[in-house]
């Protein structure tokens, strides 16, 4: 059976797995943003936490993904459902680029601008939300972009623990030694990654601050 025949016969299932894939990645990125950006801000304010936080995120990222799924399996509630497990693992992987870029983006704000703001009587909060975060935003979005593209690829492995997504086809195709089936998973996944890369790249450029 050729690739196109397979796609035509299974378009409904491909669409479903694609949506599943987007859902896995989307939820994980949202969680990682909700955790990673505050952590990134925290370590600009509290430098002692810098090394442990970045170090931990770094170590997590070096764990092979299949192994990480395995390690998380015994976790209560999380381990009970494959999709929860996959989302947790993907979230952990996405943390490093988010924490690191938030930290780097805020640190890269011109010290003269921060000093002027502080000297004018901005509170810490006002300085953060009106000056530092807006100026760091494009660097933070760059982190989201890197994390998203990475997760689209990683999420295919989630199928190994039964969490669904386009990895289903890849593993099924591998087992059947059928390239058409592998491609039916790999091509939509690659397209998703490219789309995420392109659209977040566009957003990143749009949000870049005006600099002389």
């Amino acid at each position, binding site marked *: 059976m050729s690739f196109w025949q397979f796609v035509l016969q299974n378009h409904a299932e491909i669409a479903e797995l694609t949506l599943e894939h987007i859902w896995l990645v989307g939820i994980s990125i949202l969680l990682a943003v909700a955790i990673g950006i505050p952590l990134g801000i925290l370590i600009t304010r509290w430098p002692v936490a810098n090394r442990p936080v970045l170090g931990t995120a770094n170590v997590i990222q070096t764990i092979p993904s299949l192994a990480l799924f395995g390690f998380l399996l015994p976790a209560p509630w999380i381990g009970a459902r494959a999709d929860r497990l996959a989302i947790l693992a993907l979230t952990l992987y996405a943390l490093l680029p988010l924490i690191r870029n938030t930290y780097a983006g805020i640190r890269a704000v011109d010290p003269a*601008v921060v*000093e002027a703001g502080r000297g004018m009587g901005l509170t810490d909060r006002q300085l953060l939300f009106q000056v530092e975060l807006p100026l760091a935003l494009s660097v933070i979005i760059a982190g989201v972009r890197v994390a998203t593209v990475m997760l689209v690829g990683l999420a295919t492995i989630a199928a190994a623990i039964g969490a669904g997504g386009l990895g289903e086809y890849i593993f099924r195709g591998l087992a059947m030694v059928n390239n058409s089936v592998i491609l039916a998973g790999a091509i939509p996944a690659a397209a998703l990654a490219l789309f995420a890369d392109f659209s977040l790249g566009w957003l990143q450029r749009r949000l870049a601050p005006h600099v002389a």
Partner: protein
Amino acid sequence: MSPGSDDRPVIEFHQVSYRVNGKADILENLSLQINLGETLVLLGRSGSGKTTTLKLINALLSPTAGEIRVDHRPIREWDIIRLRRMIGYVIQEVGLFPHFTIERNIGLVPRIENWPPDRIRARVRELLNLVGLDPQTAVRYPHELSGGQRQRVGVARALAADPPILLMDEPFGALDPLTRAELQREFLNLQSTLKKTVVFVTHDLHEALLLGTRIALMEAGQLVTVQPRDEFLNSQEPLVVEYKNAFDTNPNHKRERA
């Protein structure tokens, strides 16, 4: 305005020291009083402690010993945010917010002080006019302006909420000589009507003599002398003489020109 006529202290340093752990004192036992409406120039070479002295006033730094009072109240009793909002702050690098228009830059303190929008807009227009900028500058961004224009905006921003005190840290130091002379002249004009209490940091003797009503010479974290401008000019204090020799001109006629 003669410098001795009004000796109401607005800012007082009482035996203030500042040191970063372990290292030698950046500022040692400084006692100094800055009076209402005067322009006190802190003069000295790089690393003499001028900028540190300035940052102690708006609490960007805290003294390791001694006490600083603003309006007769020790700084540690002030709400730091309130204190800073009544002190205009102008720095050499200007530090305009690159993502804000000029209007938002100038209107920032009024905005966080919850002024009504039309009052802010009117105030921004008034300030642009005061510092000699076209009202159309309001809608532009900092990167679209020249260095001189940017520093004008920096001064306007510092004056926005009409603070009684103005701290200026080498505000004209990065400008070309012509633009610098222009801004110095305008500063004198402004100050003759606004009568703020100004502390002005510079390493340039000409600038000090041109703008200051009193001049405080600093060296290696210590105050060498503080004198009214004319007395400073005739001072035989060795370091003052050395400074004057280094600049090697008679700056008297410069002041007259201005």
